[in-house]
């Protein structure tokens, strides 16, 4: 993108200055790319060259042999798959709704124009949003498994906690961007805080929030499919069992059903979001 630099009087700069500026820009780009490539080379060296035991992989044939084990699909697993698939779907749904429930207060405290206290509660809510997003769902699941034991409950809670950050962040932004006039009008006619929320804020944010929740639900199906890896039920548990019993065809079957479930979820969420907006 060539930009012609001009003096304040509108005349173009001297041609030397132009060339100098361009050269400077090129130098900077070269430096950025050089640094980037050096960093990439360092990463490549650290991970692939130093840390990989090529003899153990067994060369190209070894890799193909291990890949080939997955190509046979164990269809006999099909009847065992139905209940975990429903469980996974339900865990994602309940987790998403619970996450919405948890995000309501966080979004309310974290939106700068409606927060009751800007010095303590607002930063606290922002901090909660960041924590929820930066802790991976597997780690959340580990914490909840140690808190409430095995089963579907820790999975639901982990999904809920992981969803809080995204839902409440988008909701808080939507609240910050609302039109203030209806809110003032309701206040002027004597509406109390609840009425201001229900009639002034909620109608303005609900399409955005609902679309976000549906989007998050779609992602949560993916997350709930791995909750079983750390002891929280669903398809992940079946995957883990098949993997541990070296039934590679069964592993492929579980992955196929995960794919099917997620494509189904994606289609549903696509049409739901269309209906909402």
């Amino acid at each position, binding site marked *: 993108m060539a930009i012609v630099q001009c003096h304040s009087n509108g005349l173009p700069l001297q041609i030397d200055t132009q060339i100098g500026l361009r050269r400077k820009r090129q130098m900077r780009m070269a430096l950025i790319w050089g640094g980037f490539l050096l960093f990439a080379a360092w*990463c490549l060296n650290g991970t692939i060259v130093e840390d990989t035991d090529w003899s153990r992989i067994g060369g190209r044939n070894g890799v193909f042999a291990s890949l080939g084990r*997955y190509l046979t699909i164990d269809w006999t697993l099909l009847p065992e798959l139905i209940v975990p698939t429903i469980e996974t779907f339900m865990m994602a*749904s309940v987790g998403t709704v619970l996450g919405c429930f948890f995000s309501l207060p966080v979004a309310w405290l974290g939106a700068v124009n409606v927060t009751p206290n800007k010095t303590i509660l607002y930063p606290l809510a922002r901090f909660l949003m960041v924590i929820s997003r930066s802790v991976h769902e597997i*780690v959340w699941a580990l914490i909840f498994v140690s808190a409430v034991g095995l089963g579907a*409950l820790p999975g639901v809670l982990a999904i809920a906690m992981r969803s809080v950050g995204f839902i409440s962040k988008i909701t808080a932004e939507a609240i910050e961007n609302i039109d203030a006039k209806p809110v003032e009008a309701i206040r002027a006619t004597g509406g109390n805080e609840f009425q201001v929320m229900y009639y002034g804020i909620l109608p303005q944010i609900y399409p955005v929030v609902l679309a976000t929740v549906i989007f998050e639900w779609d992602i949560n199906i993916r997350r709930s499919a791995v909750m079983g890896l750390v002891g929280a039920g669903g398809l992940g548990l079946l995957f883990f069992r098949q993997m541990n019993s070296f039934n590679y065809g069964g592993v492929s079957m579980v*992955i196929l059903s995960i794919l099917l479930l997620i494509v189904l979820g994606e289609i549903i969420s696509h049409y739901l979001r269309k209906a909402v907006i």
Partner: protein
Amino acid sequence: MNGQTTAAIVKQKLTWSRYKFPESLWSFGTILAVLVFLAYSLHFLKIDVLMMLGALGKLGGVVAARFYPPELTYVTDPGYLASILDTLQMSFLGGILGVFLAIPLAWFSAWNVSPHRAIFFPIGRLGVISCRAIHETIWTILFVSVLGFGMLAGVSALTMFCIGFAGKLFSDEIEAVDMGPVEAMRAAGANSFQVFIYAVVPQVRVAFTGIAIYTWDVAFRAATVVGFFGGGGMGWYLKRNVQQLENLRVGAIILSIIAMVLVAEFISGWLRSAVNRAK
């Protein structure tokens, strides 16, 4: 007479509702259906509702009793610090590979400039969707079983994850370009590769850079747990200590993960704003 009119107005006001008859039926019906489904799910999953709602308080108690005080000396150990560097290397390499593989797939799967709508479009879509659909931890387990423990498996899993993540954002971005230059190139007889390079890339370059940086940020978040399933990095320490029930160390590791993710988020935010300024 006058009093009656006032009473009628008051009555009318009282029966005002935001939803009129057909919509109210639809919306309440939907809400009811969702609630019934949720109630049935809770029953099916055998979840105790009171326990679920009380879990947050319990979480506080568990954290205070088991994970506090975190053993901070453990995370300043040189071996652990090296694993943080490993995580950084894995996420960076996975991000680069994923982004470079995602660009052609995104080109294929963008409906408006796809080179062939009957052949390449489904290939691109299917590639991106299947990379996205399978969670990064499952990719890790699969790659570990093929390539063995270590960072190579982690990098491969993160690459797949980044293809799915960046590919979707890239193709959305390509589908939103101004079609004027594309039509002009096509009218001048350019093939679809030339159209992509000269009409699409200049329009999406800045957005792609931003997305690539964001992809690295998300990949770093994923890289913190890739090690849990044998992919190398911080996650491996997490797994070891979880299995040995060294809860104070686990607390310290989780704290360090949060800190590193915050640092990565800060760096990515700063880089993205720098890219937007240089545009």
